[in-house]
């Protein structure tokens, strides 16, 4: 078997997949890359197309500057090359060309190789690395495949991500040709028009979730996506546990609709209570507290009252309540720096949330661990929306 030319593969991956993923435009994935090549792609790699590379770097900085004022980002690291190759292979695992009588389960095999490769890639060690990965994959959920179903009087055919054959559309009146177009988002790529295929949509969503664990900032910045649903991963919790990471995440989440963010974070955090994973729960509550304190400051400024707890939206109510409890702890630690009138107004805003039925339940569940709170929150040392923490942690 001829050896794989890594330079050619890397150039094709950058031009046809990585660059359009950042800049927008047509993503044209090629032949599957595989795990061994993916892990070796980025070693001493320099992109040949300097103009394209400069455009991509500018677009990445634009993504980063939505969260933090930086002026330059490093080139793609070995891990980022490998992650891009894995996402490429995951997308290609939904390619209809991998199905067929003699394919021998090629799609499942490719997915298994991609997942194995993802597990070999190191987690981001700093907030800067998490931000760098996010700049590559921030738009991954914007990938859309346009599918076309052409039906005529005796049959029909579906074209996935390719334009329909012109001869099928000739004599439209005589042959009663009907064309139906639809769009499939990233999580829906396994769908085949109106039919389902062998690739399990749920399994593909799980694969995407595993991929997202490697880029936790992207995971948190797309928290209200439809699929895969957000769940706390160790990498996301580690990112949120740092003050700088929490600041970046909070800046991203504040720009999204609060009910959706609260519902997604609440849905992910409630299982931590059921599993009695207290350390993880408190870490998640720090982020919720950060968000709730910011909402409270804004609401107090505009004279609004907190939204009432609703049984129909229990996840969002849980997130707000847990955030209010955490915000109260934080105010107990650092509230003396606030003007007394502002502090009183914030406490009045948080009180109905903390003392409602949901707040009482959560306080009761947390009571055996309450003596840890001061030290835990003091170490976390988070504050309001005006944080200007550097990302160079």
């Amino acid at each position: 078997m001829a050896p794989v030319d890594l330079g050619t593969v890397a150039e094709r991956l950058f031009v046809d997949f990585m660059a359009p993923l950042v800049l927008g435009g047509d993503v044209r994935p090629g032949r599957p890359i595989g795990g061994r090549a993916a892990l070796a792609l980025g070693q001493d790699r320099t992109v040949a197309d300097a103009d394209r590379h400069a455009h991509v770097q500018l677009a990445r900085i634009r993504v980063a500057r939505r969260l933090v004022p930086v002026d330059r980002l490093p080139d793609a690291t070995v891990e980022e090359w490998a992650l891009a190759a894995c996402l490429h292979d995951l997308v290609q695992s939904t390619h209809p060309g991998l199905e067929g009588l003699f394919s021998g389960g090629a799609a499942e095999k490719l997915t298994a190789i991609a997942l194995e490769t993802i597990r070999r890639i190191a987690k981001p060690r700093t907030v800067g690395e998490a931000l760098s990965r996010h700049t590559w994959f921030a738009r991954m959920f914007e990938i859309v495949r346009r599918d076309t179903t052409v039906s005529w009087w005796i049959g029909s055919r579906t074209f996935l991500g390719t334009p329909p054959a012109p001869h099928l559309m000739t004599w439209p009146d005589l042959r009663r040709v009907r064309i139906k177009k639809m769009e499939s988002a990233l999580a829906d790529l396994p769908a085949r028009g109106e039919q389902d295929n062998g690739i399990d949509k749920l399994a593909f969503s799980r694969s995407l979730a595993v991929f997202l664990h490697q880029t936790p900032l992207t995971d948190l910045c797309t928290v209200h996506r439809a699929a895969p649903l957000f769940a706390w991963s160790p990498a996301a919790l580690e990112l949120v546990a740092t003050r700088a990471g929490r600041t970046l995440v909070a800046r991203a989440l504040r720009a999204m609709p609060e009910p959706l963010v609260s519902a997604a974070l609440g849905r992910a955090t409630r299982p931590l209570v059921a599993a009695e994973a207290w350390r993880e729960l408190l870490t998640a509550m720090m982020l919720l507290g950060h968000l709730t304190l910011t909402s409270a400051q804004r609401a107090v400024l505009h004279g609004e009252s907190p939204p009432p707890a609703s049984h129909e939206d229990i996840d969002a109510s849980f997130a707000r309540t847990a955030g209010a409890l955490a915000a109260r702890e934080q105010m107990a630690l650092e509230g003396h720096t606030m003007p007394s009138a502002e502090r009183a107004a914030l406490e009045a805003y948080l009180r109905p949330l903390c003392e409602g039925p949901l707040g009482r339940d959560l306080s009761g569940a947390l009571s055996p661990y309450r003596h840890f709170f001061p030290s835990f929150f003091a170490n976390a040392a988070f504050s309001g929306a005006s944080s200007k923490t550097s990302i160079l942690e």
Partner: protein
Amino acid sequence: MLERIALHQTRLRTPGLGLDAKGVALGAKGLLLLPSIDRLVALLSVYTQEHSLEDLMPSLEIHVVRSKLGTREMTLSFAAESSDRMDRMADTARLVGGFIFTGTSRHFVQYRDAAAPFGYDTSQLLATDAALSLYHDRFTQAYELERAVPLLSLLLRLMPQVEPATYATAGPRYLVAEPGLGPALIHYLVRSRVEGEVAVGEWPPASAFDEGPIRRTIVRVPELPPRMRPLMGSTPGIVTFFPAGPGVAVEAGYRHPVQLRACPVFDPQGLVFLRGKGEEPWVLPRLPLMGDLRAFARIELRTEPKEADESGAVARALGHPESVRVPLRIVASTTPWRSVTATWITPQELPLLRRLAYALPREIIQKTRVAITARGAFLRCADGIEAIPLGTFFVEIHPHLYIPAGYDVTPAVAPDVLYRALGASPAHVLFVTPREEALAVEASAFAPLEVALLEAKPWEPLASESIEAALAETPVELHLSPLGTFPMRGVESPEPLAAPDAPETKGS
């Protein structure tokens, strides 16, 4: 799953969907899907500003529905009848962010819009046992009915909104006084010569520890003098209510979110007092008998005569008295016109009023009140009605009693006597016509002319053209190309780890 219906298309797939005379796809029912109850209230509020729900009431149903994912939404269904009605509903639904569908039993397709003037049909029906299947160009969803929401209970649960301007509103009102305050209030009103009727309403005790039912005094006053209005609004224990429609009244200082006059769900024989501050409404299933306020005036008795004087202090009847009653006559008078504050416009003259409406100044339109009856329109304006030179002018000779301008009543009795002789209640406004007929119009039927006058034109939604952002991002579109004969050639798993803690990649 939706297809636009083409011109002259006759075959439709959706069961229960047909084409009306205009070729628009229409089922027996219309159905509105609203994401929450506040949108439903907004819809009712907007719709009842211009239209009455009376024609919808027999078929109107509100349900809470649940999708497969457990989300709850509201539906409002009604008989579709015509595309005109559906168009009106569709306009309102679009305004409040709802979706409108049409269908007959379970399958409802999106009603027509600007993109499909003849409506939509579905290409494939959902295979489901759900009670509702909705087909929209943005989604296709099946819903189960969770519970019905009666309109009356919804209206009763809606808390009136604060509207301080209503305190100064003129017109009929109810005063409800707590036990103990009733006699004092009645005496005060009688002493101040305020016309009205009084009744006592009974409500069940609030708890088992109360001794008996709660009795409150209800006074219906057709017109409260302006000097008394602040007093009634600020006296604890006396609550003022304004009639908001047949059988319902809303507390002064508040306004119900929905135009209750357009919702004929309240029993006109009873009375519901909707209270502010989130308090429970007071409901009277049957309005008790109301008596004239003057019957409750304080009485004083002379000292009892020692002995009946036979000498002539007491008149005796010598025979049957002859009747001296004469019929009322209206005769022309030469006295100058004063206080011409009402006019009666016959149905034949109403088109003229419509044409004149364009020329009327704003102040006149604001201050004039109108009641539309089968005999024509009656207009009243306290500052004078001469600005509307139409119909038969009337002069107010007594509160709520009008005679034609330029005429006098014979025999020349006092206006108060004439009013009592006509035997009308204070809740009515009496017009004695030049033909000597007396017409009584309910005082609550008079509505501001500006509300009755304007016929809102159906508006045409215009889509604003989006301004392209300077930093617009190109969408990320996936294009697939053939993978060749052996797509998995050269695809290898990562090398197996040499040792459990061997480095994976940089930094691992």
